[in-house]
């Protein structure tokens, strides 16, 4: 009997040891590092003359965000398959979960998706760990890239937005090309022409005017037949996405910086006296003329409030207003006009951008086919069709922006083309590139909420700068 007990104990001990083996192995194996990294690019393997059919029979897997631009892409995928013989399988996720899904997928080190949508800010997060393929060698290889792709046709600021040297604080437009511009958004003011006419208002040329108009609409519009209307819709949720549209645009137009860079070292600058004053004014504008329950406002609420005639103005992506302005899209359609928004004290129209880009997984086993897909998706033929027959507006290519069919399509929206042409050259990423971007901007949004709730702007922003100094320094 004793022997029996002893045997059982020994069995349990051995089984436990066996179970622990993978744990120890995992410990020893480390953290899934980049063990097959090489300096050469797979683009160098592509030789001979350029051929769309080179990867015929291959299937490329794409991860896409639910968006009108995506709808336009999916609607035209058949053309790509006909042109190349490459099949595209795709998953579409809503924006709330999209980047979590992409981040987890890329960090796993697997090539579940060969290509995906991302923003320029994501390059700062996904680039340093080596998750993104440098597309520069592909673009430079004439065997891999057809002449009609025409790199010079892209707005240069858009192409530069996805280029980075992976060094914190280093300016964009240098280093690897980690994604390609595919669709973008510039941040401007859209307004309800009815309420402006009724109250005798003109679009604001300065930030002070914008605050006054926002307050005036909130005060006077409900009595003037615009029941429940407030002045200005701007984002307010506790998210990085709150900072980058209207807020960062106006911040940049005031000549303000998020960080100062000296010798490669970043110092938070959102607590400079000028930045504190501006942030206080912005929070004041929201209190005076912003939406109720602002702290939960995302682009979706802002956009739909403009469309539902709940907001007199929207300071956000031009696309957010466009999707409400098109005929039949909302109660306010036909009554929405576009304006570049207030200038800075020195007349600056510096504008922050959001850029939907397409990137390639560095771990992809189908890089050649993936590159053909990226080339097609960012090419003139597809983008022109998407801009004219679908809602893929704000073209990344100059030829499409100047295309008469595109202009005819957009002309019925008052001020859209003029606004686009006014700000297009001054629209760029206004943030300092650095890997802690999401932490910095999420905390910045939280700070903005605190100030809106009555917290002292200086102490809140000093606290924010103190926290961030350790993380980015």
């Amino acid at each position: 009997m004793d022997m029996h007990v002893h045997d059982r104990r020994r069995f349990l001990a051995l089984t436990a040891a066996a179970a622990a083996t993978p744990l120890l192995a995992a410990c020893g194996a480390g953290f899934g590092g980049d063990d097959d990294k090489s300096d050469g690019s797979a683009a160098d393997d592509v030789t001979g003359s350029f051929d769309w059919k080179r990867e015929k029979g291959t299937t490329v897997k794409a991860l896409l965000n639910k968006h009108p631009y995506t709808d336009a892409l999916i609607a035209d995928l058949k053309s790509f398959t006909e042109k190349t013989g490459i099949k595209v399988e795709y998953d579409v996720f809503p924006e709330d979960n999209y980047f979590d899904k992409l981040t987890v997928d890329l960090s796993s080190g697997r090539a579940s998706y060969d290509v995906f949508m991302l923003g320029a800010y994501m390059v700062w997060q996904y680039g340093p760990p080596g998750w993104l393929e440098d597309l520069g060698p592909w673009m430079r290889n004439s065997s891999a890239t057809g002449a009609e792709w025409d790199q010079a046709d892209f707005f240069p600021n858009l192409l530069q937005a996805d280029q980075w040297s992976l060094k914190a604080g280093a300016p964009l437009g240098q280093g690897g090309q980690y994604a390609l511009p595919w669709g973008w958004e510039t941040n401007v003011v859209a307004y309800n022409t009815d309420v402006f006419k009724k109250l005798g208002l003109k679009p604001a040329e300065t930030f002070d005017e914008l605050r006054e108009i926002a307050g005036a609409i909130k005060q006077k519009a409900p009595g003037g037949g615009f029941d429940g209307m407030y002045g200005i819709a701007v984002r307010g949720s506790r998210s990085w996405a709150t900072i980058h549209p209207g807020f960062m645009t106006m911040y940049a137009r005031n000549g303000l910086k998020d960080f100062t860079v000296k010798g490669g070292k970043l110092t938070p600058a959102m607590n400079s006296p000028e930045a504190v004053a501006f942030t206080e004014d912005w929070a004041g504008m929201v209190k005076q003329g912003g939406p109720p329950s602002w702290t939960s406002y995302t682009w979706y609420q802002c956009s739909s409030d403009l469309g539902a005639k709940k907001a007199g103005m929207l300071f956000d992506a031009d696309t957010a207003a466009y999707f409400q302005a098109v005929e039949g899209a909302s109660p306010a359609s036909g009554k929405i006009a576009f304006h570049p928004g207030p200038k800075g004290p020195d007349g600056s129209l510096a504008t922050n951008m959001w850029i939907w880009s397409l990137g390639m997984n560095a771990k992809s086993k189908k890089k050649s086919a993936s590159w053909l897909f990226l080339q097609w998706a960012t090419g003139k033929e597809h983008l022109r069709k998407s801009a004219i027959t679908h809602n893929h507006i704000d073209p990344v290519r100059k030829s499409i922006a100047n295309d008469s069919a595109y202009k005819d399509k957009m002309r019925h929206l008052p001020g859209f083309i003029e606004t686009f042409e006014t700000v297009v050259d001054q629209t760029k990423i206004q943030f300092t590139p650095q890997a802690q971007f999401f932490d910095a901007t999420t905390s910045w949004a939280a700070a903005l909420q605190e100030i809106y709730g009555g917290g002292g702007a200086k102490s809140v922003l000093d606290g924010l700068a103190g926290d961030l100094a350790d993380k980015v320094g």
Partner: protein
Amino acid sequence: MGWRLALRPYLLIVPALLLTCGILYPFGLGLYYTLFDFSASKPQPDMVRFENYETVFTQEAFWNSAWVTVLYAVGAAAVETVLGVAVALLLHRSSQVGRVLEKILILPLMIAPVIAAIIWKLMLQPSVGVINYLLRPFGLGGVQWTDTPTGALLSSIAVDVWVYTPFVAILALAGLRSLPTSPFEAAAVDGAGWWYTFRRLTLPMLWPYVLVAVIFRFMDSLKVFDIIYALTEGGPGDSTVVLQIRAYLEAIRFQRYSFGISYTIVLWAVVYLAAMVLVKHLGKIQRKAAEVK
């Protein structure tokens, strides 16, 4: 003894062993990762031993999150217990209506908490939400429910209460239905009032059931993520950033994996200790309830 009989104990233990390994392996690995500075920017990290924990405990953000988590868990568990027991008492008394209400009561439990939070987010919306619409006749139509720190925390607790009070009520109702009838009959013969009977008989005998509900709800509330994230994203400011949200932000959004896991390990330790204390207390309560019976 045949070899089959000799092998049986080992075979019987295999499922339990596999299950245990399935639980312990990720846990052990997570624990191990906290000893490194593993992040997206450092995929081949150095061993930093307990530095992550040191940083966690010296961060003001951690103590703020810990405080919010405790406030949330205590608030939600307390309100749910009181309401749940009250509802159970009401349902236990009435017969026909009670049966109908029982079925309605269970509805919130069938909704995913994140969906419940989104529904409530719409209902609490100040300008178009139904709550302010209903309050408008009383001059209270302009409340901005989630725009202030206190409002956001209370709103989150309210959603939790809406979702989980039925859980407490169902457990308490099951308890009420299993109580012996003789002590109550004796109390009625002696002319004891409702309050006296409730205080001296019902509650002491019901406590073990209620405490089971409290343990479940308190531990669950300490780990809350979905309701708060869907309702407030942790805002305004940091006012509703509970430990789970902080861990999610650190590990997933900001990709500081080791640091994020350290937060979850600390949370695990807190929940484990709280559960130990409560379970120990449950034993005492059960013994007292047995004495009353």
